[in-house]
């Protein structure tokens, strides 16, 4: 039997807008998808993952080269392959006005399934996805994780021989991510005799490690095409845990990261994960307390990316002198003090008496499952949403009494690029400087500093929409900092960016924190959470835990889980808190 998908020298370009040259989405791609395993399609945003999936689903016509799915050439014969393809687009692809059952019925009709077949499969899928109790609920009213499960159930209904999943785990909390994975692997097992194949696109590198085979895409090119083990193999013996003995975590990270022998250093609890360069000797790190670690997927991704990427972009040049926040002079109290904060929407209490404090210069993370209330808390602290009760002081200002004064002291960077794509970098900065009400001299100074500190001078006259993702992010950060805020709010700032760009971003954030800027982050990404000094885990509107990443890990350490990841800690703590709250109720 031939492999389910054969791709030969595939090339796809998007026509350029208004005279600009066409963008190459995929170039010279040759591979095949094997049956019986999950093939991970891995890469940062804009790597070409979605384009490749759409080509496999027959939604785009290949520009050059050939793509054959289940024996059908997708350029000419896509309709013949459709009945055997299950495709789940990134944006659910569900009808929000239909109920859970309605969506499943629609897909059953589209695949012309007999009533008997329906009766056999739908209840099973519902049970499998845990959606049975919600069968009558409108799809639009499901949580993010449940929507993804329903989308998956719809794609699986016809027992497709090729299942294409476009980032099913984006915006889904870690527990739901694991459930999605479990459903897919179980269905793969059932479809083994039919030669079922699964392609799972993801930006999560830990998911890639679980795949049977990984296609690593970067800027439209296939960087690697092999089982995750062979990715990792060359890194054996080059990965260590360095214990941080004295001084701050960030200082230690900087010290080690700038060691020429070190390829990569990231924080992990109260230690650093260090990857040595190829051929470098451990002796370069004499004086550090090192324990060897098994390499993981992200390490190899970094290793491969740094071969292709220009060396300079990895970390910003040595600590630049960071402008201290405008009001270091103010009172010495905590930067953020939240006491009994409540927010209700009608009869629903989204945030239920949350209290915590964030010290000046601290990086504080808000974590929680979908719908737990972390976004609501975050919005209240930014002054975007009025609290229903309790007190919240931000930068010394009472949010209830003087929300405008509090807002003037904070910077906000949204999850999506929220600058003007049609304006140039300089025009964007000028606009934001004026919006923040800086005087003429202040504007000029702030803009000059932003261009210099964030290496934006070379692209000052480039239209922001055309910048690469990493530079866009730098621009967004520089715009949020123009008015020298005391507190910076970040909403999943590095979701979907490649690990090099993420490291660069967080290294800047670390410098800001060291200069006394307080950082509040809300995120789903455990990689982002690792950079936080302290984390608050929000569950069902209440705080389940507030502690350092290292302590959170220690709290769930058990004999059978000697070295829990932050994700393990998150899942265990949320589960324990849910049981506890249910018992109390």
């Amino acid at each position: 039997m031939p492999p389910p998908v054969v791709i030969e020298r595939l090339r796809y370009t998007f026509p350029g807008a208004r005279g600009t040259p066409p963008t190459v989405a995929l170039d010279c791609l040759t591979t095949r998808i094997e049956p019986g395993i999950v093939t991970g399609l891995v890469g940062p945003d804009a790597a070409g993952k979605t384009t490749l999936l759409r080509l496999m689903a027959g939604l785009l016509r290949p520009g050059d080269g050939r793509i054959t799915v289940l024996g059908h050439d997708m350029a000419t014969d896509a309709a013949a392959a459709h009945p055997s393809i299950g495709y789940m687009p990134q944006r659910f692809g569900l009808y929000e006005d239909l109920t859970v059952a309605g969506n499943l019925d629609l897909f059953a009709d589209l695949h012309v399934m007999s009533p008997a077949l329906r009766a056999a499969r739908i209840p099973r899928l519902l049970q499998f996805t845990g959606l049975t109790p919600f069968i009558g609920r409108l799809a639009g009213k499901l949580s993010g994780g449940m929507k993804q499960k329903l989308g998956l159930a719809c794609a699986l209904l016809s027992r497709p021989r090729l299942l294409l999943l476009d980032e099913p785990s984006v915006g889904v909390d870690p527990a739901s991510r694991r459930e999605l994975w479990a459903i897919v692997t179980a269905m793969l097992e059932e479809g083994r005799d039919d030669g079922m194949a699964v392609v799972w696109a993801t930006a999560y590198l830990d998911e890639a490690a679980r795949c049977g085979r990984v296609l690593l895409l970067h800027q439209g090119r296939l960087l690697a095409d092999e089982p995750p083990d062979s990715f990792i193999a060359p890194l054996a013996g080059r990965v260590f845990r360095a214990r941080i003995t004295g001084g701050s975590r960030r200082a230690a990270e900087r010290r080690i990261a700038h060691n020429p022998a070190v390829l990569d250093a990231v924080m992990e609890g109260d230690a650093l994960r260090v990857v040595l360069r190829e051929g470098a000797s451990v002796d370069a790190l004499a004086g550090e307390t090192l324990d060897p670690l098994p390499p993981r997927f992200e390490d190899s991704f970094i290793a491969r990316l740094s071969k292709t990427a220009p060396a300079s972009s990895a970390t910003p040049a040595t600590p630049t002198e960071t402008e201290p926040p405008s009001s270091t002079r103010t009172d010495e109290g905590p930067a953020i003090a939240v006491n009994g904060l409540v927010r209700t929407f009608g009869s629903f209490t989204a945030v239920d008496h949350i209290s915590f404090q964030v010290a000046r210069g601290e990086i504080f993370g808000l974590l929680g499952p979908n719908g737990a209330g972390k976004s609501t808390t975050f919005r209240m602290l930014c002054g975007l949403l009025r609290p229903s009760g309790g007190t919240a002081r931000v930068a010394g200002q009472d949010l209830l009494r003087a929300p405008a004064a509090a807002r003037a002291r904070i910077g906000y960077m949204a999850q999506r690029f929220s600058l003007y794509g049609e304006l140039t970098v300089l025009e964007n900065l000028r606009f934001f400087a004026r919006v923040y009400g800086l005087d003429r001299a202040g504007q000029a100074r702030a803009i000059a500093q932003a261009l210099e500190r964030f290496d934006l001078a070379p692209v000052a006259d480039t239209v922001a929409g055309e910048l690469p993702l990493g530079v866009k992010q730098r621009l967004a950060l520089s715009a949020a900092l123009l008015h020298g805020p005391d507190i910076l709010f970040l909403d999943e700032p590095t979701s979907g960016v490649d690990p090099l760009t993420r490291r660069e971003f967080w290294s800047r954030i670390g410098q800001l924190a060291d200069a006394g800027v307080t950082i509040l982050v809300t995120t789903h990404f455990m990689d982002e959470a690792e950079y936080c000094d302290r984390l608050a885990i929000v569950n069902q509107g209440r705080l389940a835990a507030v502690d350092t990443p290292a302590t959170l890990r220690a709290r769930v350490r058990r004999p059978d889980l000697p070295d829990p990841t932050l994700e393990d800690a998150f899942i265990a703590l949320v589960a324990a808190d849910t049981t506890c709250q249910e018992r109390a109720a």
Partner: protein
Amino acid sequence: MIVTVQRLRGLVRKEIAQILRDPSAILIAFLLPVVLLVVNGFGISFDAYHMRVAAVIEAPDEGVLGMLEALDASPYLDVRPAASMVAAQQALAMGEVRGILVVREDFPQRLRHPASWPATAALWVNATDPNTARILEGYVTGALTVWLQGQGAELRRSPGGGLSLEQRDWFNPELRSADFIVPGVIAMVMTMTGTLLTSLIVAREWERGTMESMLASPATMAELILAKLGCYFVLGMLSMLGSVALAITAFGVPFRGSVGALFVASALFLVFALAFGLLISTVARNQFVASQVAFIATMMPAMMLSGMLFDIAAMPHWLQIVTFAVPARYLVSILQTLFLAGDVWAVILPNLAALAVAAALAMAATLRVTRRRLD
């Protein structure tokens, strides 16, 4: 073009559930027509009541005074004797009166001696608003005619000169603008439900990614288009029926033609409107752009160039040629004929043919553009 009954049924069921759960579809199809009819039927009224007219009488006479009384008795006119021509002109300039009726010295004489007819009276009209000016002319002439007829009967004279004014207003004898506008509004309502609603709904499917999963499913393009257009066709026809019922009951607009012709004309127009809406959303793929294009490309022409509000015959020649490209014009023409005149096949058939051509062209363009691909 393969159509499977089960797939089609599933898709139709989905469309119905969406229409029922989505308030905007119901609003556009049923509430908007009511608002449009009420606004256009009552609000934008071309009728004027109690228009003040100054009367300058150079020779007061019993007959003339009787004529003025008759004019004043009309609900549309309010005659005010003026002391002199100068005073009357001043009142006209100040906007106190809309027109001046000048009755010359020899008027009573001529009236009595039919041989020297016609007796002439002059009407000066404030023509800043030409529409109102024309209406005032109409009312005054109308009232005079009525009076003259009465005079003739009373005096039992049928002189050789006869009556000098022979004018009648056909089809809309009361010159009620509601009768004239409401059929046009129905054309607009159908443009709305057809093009605007369809383009919005389909653009939303693109935005939410549901179109993508439909295209990746085994459903054929024919099934997708048939289910979508079929459901909105029914919705559009219901909306049309509601509007017609409202026009007849609430506005007292007569309906003199055949229901069959109404159905055929509406159906053809709706096929055009739906196909065009689908075409717009396929090209635009986003609700905002789709609504803009739908408004500019169909709503505006339907309002301005269909003959619904403005008489096509009164437009400049080149603009008259442009109106032939606006399918709403054929529908408006048919509707006005059906409502006010009856089954005048000489008018209806050519317009039906034009609608059929428009529907076929729009359908062909849609099928050409809408392919099973994202690119």
